């Protein structure tokens, strides 16, 4: 059920993020969502793309340090309070969210949230039980 997140290690030099997105663009990989966590010295780029196999291959060829991890994707309506409600459900179940980021779809009026948790299956079943719509790799490819 979980979706694939591409994680890329980047050193904080000028232009490093642009070179990653540039490589992906030249290989027809579309970025659906992007978030960066950074320190003074390095950054970790997190990407949801339409073709993570291609993305991994071309970035590896350019010498990037990459890891593909499974994350939980949730579709939430474009209305106030929906994100809080989702986090609330997880919090009550004692599930720690390591990090999260949100993105909008081009076509639909929906917001999507990517959640990094320790155990994807538990988080997914709790969210599903609470009535949230989880997204799959197929959904991502259709966006």
């Amino acid at each position, binding site marked *: 059920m979980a979706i694939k997140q591409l994680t890329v290690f980047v050193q904080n030099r000028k232009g490093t993020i642009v070179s990653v997105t540039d490589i992906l663009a030249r290989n027809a990989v579309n970025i659906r969502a992007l978030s960066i966590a950074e320190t003074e010295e390095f950054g970790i780029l997190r990407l949801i793309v339409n073709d993570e196999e291609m993305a991994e291959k071309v970035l590896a060829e350019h010498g990037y*340090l*990459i890891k593909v991890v499974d994350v939980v994707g949730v579709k939430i309506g474009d209305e106030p309070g929906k994100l809080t409600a989702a986090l609330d459900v997880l919090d009550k179940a004692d599930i720690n969210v390591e990090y999260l980021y949100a993105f909008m779809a081009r076509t639909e009026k929906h917001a999507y949230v990517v959640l*990094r948790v320790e155990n994807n299956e538990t988080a997914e079943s709790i969210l599903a039980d609470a009535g949230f719509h989880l997204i799959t790799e197929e959904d991502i490819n259709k966006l």
Partner: protein
Amino acid sequence: MAQNYYQKEIETMSVESMKQLQSEKLVKQVKHVYENVPYYKNLMDEKGVKPEDIKGIEDLYKLPFLTKADLRDAYPYGLLAKPLEECVRIQSTSGTTGRRVVAFYTQKDIDLWEDCCARAIVAAGGTNKDVCQVAYGYGLFTGGAGLNGGSHKVGCLTLPMSSGNTERQIQFMTDLSAKILCCTPSYAAYIGETLKEQGYKPEDIPLKAGIFGAEPWTEEMRQNIEETLGIKAYDIYGLTETSGPGVAFECSEQTGMHINEDHFLAEIIDPETGEVLPEGEKGELVFTSLDKEAFPLLRYRTRDICVLSRKQCSCGRTLIKMAKPMGRTDDMLIIRGVNVFPSQIETVLLNEGYLPNYQIVVDRANNTDTFEVNVEMSPEQFTDKVSDVLQMEKSLANAMKTMLGINPTIHLVAPKSIVRSEGKAVRVIDKRKLV
């Protein structure tokens, strides 16, 4: 394990008798050099030292040092102490930096050198019943010639393989049941990997011991070689300037190398001041050849940093021991007043599960040295969490602090991101020198 010695009387001689023997030899050697080597006579004259001032090893400190620069200046014949017609051999260094070093040998020099190598082979458990495979390079390099000669002296059936052609090495090793392998540690590791790929288990490999030297290697490498080949791996030390391999060799205790001090008198000095340091202190290793006729170097500074120890050894040998050199004086960095060797950083990295791909950056800010180490992270180590990466940096810094006594700032970086110059990684960037 019952101990065998090649020259028991010398190898187990009392320290008193050894010092007596060294003193007698030193007095003669200084006279021989003063009379036959104008280059060194000049150095002694400049220092105001006469041969008669040297009455024993306690006077050694009075003699001037020889350095690699002297060897270059005196190239090729300036330090020769015997007429060429009495010399029978030349060996030479690889000469990767500067002019090559050329060392001369009389027949007696060769003989004593081979004895030294024979002591090493016997200490590693070699006997005349064993097949000894010498996979050091033959030729100008001292590795092949030295161990080949030592193997003959022990009476081993000697396989003069030279280095390379690993398929053939393996074929001879297995067909003829070689028991002792002599080569560089990196080549031993390579042979081990190849055997493993071909499906050999350690117990299928006939070897029982290996004598590995001529390049720096770590304890981790030793364990790795011992496991893949199913052997005991012994270290051997030497340098072309003093003869070749066999200046010092490891015994069954594997806690440092016994110096053949009846031939090579060792000292440890402060590399900055030249002052002789007491036993047990870390400093530059200096050798005086007591028996060499053709190329007798007095107080030759090896640039290797190490420690000497006279602690009693379980093997029964009384010969003084030297620790594995922890670096070269040329590589030594002084950071916040502490001596730091790149080899120490490398050891920590291997201990902590990193590849030795690193770069030390030293600079100065607010009148204090800054000390940063960039370390390449492997794909397996990389995680998507910033906190994990920061934690890895922190624990690596702690491990370095324990080893070095000072705290570096660690930066984990992407693989292959450390600048390489002609394929070799640039290990040290010292920006303090550029100011």
